[in-house]
């Protein structure tokens, strides 16, 4: 049975409020549980007198009967608000590992550890719009992978516009979309499903701890790879000029006819940037990074010295967070949160991570 519920209000007789009652959803009597088959093989070992430890794990998860909407194949003219149906099938597989080694050599006491996790899902079955070309299908790709036009540069001048298929209205300074299906025109059929999403397929870390006499050092690197992110400013136009420095410093102008950086745009005025929502790979960047997440160097005064002045222990230290980042991403932090779960858009209203440097003294009486 279809369930009906209130979804708003409407006025009659100038100011008389009445509820509006609508079918909340079309029933799906056949709904059932999602099925998850999880399998993994693990390996744990400690070698060389427990100096070396190795952990490795491989997993293969198959989720089927995933509840999903069949919107992709039902035309709008049916007018249906569809129920979720058990139609999705997704495989998630990958491996995790950690290798650690610790040892002592004379006054040196050290420990090294490397860990990493690789995980990637792909859709085995999804509701596809009939008639879309293979390179636009969700099936075979990761969940939440987006469709983009492929940006292959910028129209340097009118000759460049004339020489390549282009969106109607394209002019010098506009981004060139690749004619993916080689039909001599640029339209929605030239969009391509991305192989990446906002979620990295590989994450890893490296830690290093060292003690030498009264000195101690600890270092943590972390990194991620396989994700893509995008960043845009909301607007741009007469009165509201709001651009990233990197977008404008080498921008196309008639005097500087760049073939790599587009002109500045007006809000809603460019086919490649409508109301802050670009639809092409120019604005999408690989967010791979390696970051020196944590670094700390300390020195503890010998207790023979501290005891004399009535102090149990005294340690001076310098530490830093996010000191170094190696990434191709320029205008945002690769670890910035998403605007919504699964979105590749960087939430520009959140402060990026701080680079922090601490110098300290810890004294125990």
């Amino acid at each position, binding site marked *: 049975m279809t369930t009906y519920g209130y979804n708003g209000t409407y006025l009659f007789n100038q100011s008389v409020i009445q509820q509006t009652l609508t079918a909340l959803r079309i029933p799906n009597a056949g709904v059932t549980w999602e099925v998850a088959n999880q399998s993994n093989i693990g390996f744990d070992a400690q070698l060389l007198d427990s100096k070396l430890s190795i952990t490795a794990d491989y997993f293969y998860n198959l989720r089927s009967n995933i509840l999903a909407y069949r919107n992709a194949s039902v035309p709008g003219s049916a*007018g249906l608000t569809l129920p979720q149906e058990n139609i999705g099938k997704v495989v998630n597989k990958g491996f995790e590992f950690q290798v650690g080694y610790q040892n002592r050599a004379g006054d040196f006491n050290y420990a090294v550890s490397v860990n990493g996790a690789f995980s990637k899902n792909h859709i085995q079955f999804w509701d596809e719009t009939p008639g*879309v070309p293979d390179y636009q299908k969700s099936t075979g790709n990761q969940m939440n992978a987006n469709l983009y036009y492929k940006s292959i540069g910028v129209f340097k001048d009118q000759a460049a516009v004339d020489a390549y298929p282009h969106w109607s209205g394209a002019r010098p300074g506009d981004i060139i979309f690749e004619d993916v299906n080689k039909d001599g025109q640029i339209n929605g059929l030239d969009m391509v499903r991305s192989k990446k999403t906002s979620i990295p397929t590989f994450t890893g870390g490296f830690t290093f701890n060292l003690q030498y006499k009264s000195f101690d050092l600890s270092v943590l690197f972390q990194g991620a790879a396989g994700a893509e992110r995008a960043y845009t400013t909301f607007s741009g*136009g007469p009165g509201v000029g709001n651009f990233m420095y990197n977008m404008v410093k080498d921008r196309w102008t008639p005097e500087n006819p760049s073939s790599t950086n587009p002109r500045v745009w007006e809000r809603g005025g460019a086919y490649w940037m409508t109301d802050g929502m670009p639809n092409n790979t120019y604005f999408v960047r690989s967010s791979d990074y390696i970051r020196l997440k944590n670094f700390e160097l300390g020195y503890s005064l010998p207790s023979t010295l501290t005891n004399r002045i009535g102090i149990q222990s005294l340690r001076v230290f310098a530490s830093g967070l996010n000191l170094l980042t190696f990434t191709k991403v320029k205008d945002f932090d690769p670890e910035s949160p998403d605007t919504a779960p699964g979105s590749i858009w960087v939430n520009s209203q959140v402060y990026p991570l701080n680079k922090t440097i601490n110098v300290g003294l810890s004294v125990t009486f």
Partner: protein
Amino acid sequence: MNIKKIHLISASVVLAMTTLNSCKKDFLDTKPTTQFAESDVWSDPNLIQLNLNSIYNQNPWNFYMTSISVDEARCYDGGADFNMSNMLLSPDNAGWGDWNGKYRAIRDCNVFLENIDKLPNDATLTDGVTLKNRLKGEAIFLRAWYYQMLVSYFGGVPLVTTSYKLTDDFAAPRNSYEECVKFISDQCDEAAALLPLQNSGDAKGRATKGAALALKSRALLYAASELHNTNKFAGFSNPEVLGYVGGDKMLRWQAAKDAAKAVIDLGVYSLYQPSPATPEQATQNYEDLFTSKESTEDIFIRYFNVAANLGADFWTVFPNGFGGIEYNGATSETVDAYEMADGTAFSRNNPAQNKEPYKNRDPRLYATILYEGAKFRPRASNLLGTDPVGVLQVGTWEKWDAGAGKITYVYGLDSRNSAVYGGGYNNTGTSMLKFINRKTDMYVNHQDDLTWRFIGYTEVILNYAEACIELGQDAEARTYLNMIRKRAGMPNFTESGAALKLKYQNERRVEMLFENQRFFDVRRWMIGADAYHPMHGVDVVYKLNPDKTTATIPTVTPVQITTGSWNDKAYFMPIARSEMNKNAKLVQNPGYN
């Protein structure tokens, strides 16, 4: 947590279960009070009306409707509907006409009509009809309403008149334009037979016989128009989805005339304040018509009320110096379309008219558009020193700074350099006044009361006059058009033939500005190129005189604010690529493949 505590909690749970069980055995089967089973909805005379309310609620409305998609207005950032203005519309950016939204509403109508007979019969008459007949009439009207919109945007569309089940085959071909118009017209007749002549009490705002007949008038007028009776797209495979492929055009105009006359002959509507004594009174009457809560012209309306927390969002259209974002600024082309008060055309080539373009114009202009110096409402208290009267200030004052020996510029409070809020609002040099209640204070509430007339009596009069002109009945057309002219405080039309047709077209443009008409009118009249071209606003400067004083009369110069062009494909909207992919039986409109 210690063990004693757990015991205590278990005990209380058992106790609670016991208590509930003892008073009501089926307590787990209680019906939720905010959700209802389908069977309850159709049998309950109250719930079934609330379901119908949700179909009314899907009727799209905002202050600007289609005005920025045609030449009536432009919005902030000098922008408009960029893809439409520049003829870049395609299946990949198709959103015009909201195909999916309309079909969702149509499905709701279909479901309603499939179930209405489950409502128990009740012979009680309210406003002369039974509840069941009224509800059936409303749903039939609303379905025709949504189809009429779809057809106006796309031409013939699939006529879906039953609700699909999940297991159905959803692919449906487009019906011919003729079939669609006949369906809409027939459904309007059917609805009119069921609906009351007028509603009373809390039924006000629901569809009436007049609403159904007026919708029919609109549908038949559009159908008789040139666009649907001329094949502009010679090579197109399916001309029948765009218009009639045979038959007599004159019979269609006759049908359009009869449909409009049927509304007039109901005798329940009349022009609001038809005989003003002065032009000032005509201006006031015209303003009152669009800000009144009820009028003699109301055929199909929607109420907004701020006390009920369902006010209209005036913030979107208020001038930026008065606390709004000034979304809908009339273009120079729109302002220029208003005649001089004596009925002659306004001309920028006339030096006196060009010097003071807002002087001695059609009285309706002063109730429709705010321009430089037009009195609006009191400013916020901190601005009373700058502007004690409360007039629109989009201009720039050039003032001589004797000390520094140079010109300084003072910018108006509603300009793009406004000290109040500059942020990049419309650069037409005007702001919308029609529909705006001058008492609304943005600094108290962004919303206010409004009665929006989706169909008013003026439209029916104009529909009738247009059909008369096309049928060669100029005298009859003039009789009705001159009612509108008189109400507006403008001289009568005396023209005939093609000259009268041009006068009429301009009259409709001016009289029904911002009422979601012109977007469709320029299409059905096939004058797309007149409405889509580079658009202008005005630059307003109070210039520095040679004696270093500042001019008191501003220099108003039209300047181009947006690009624009025309392509015949835009007579019909593109169907979205995804919809084409999902329904293999659809044919795309010409120019979009």
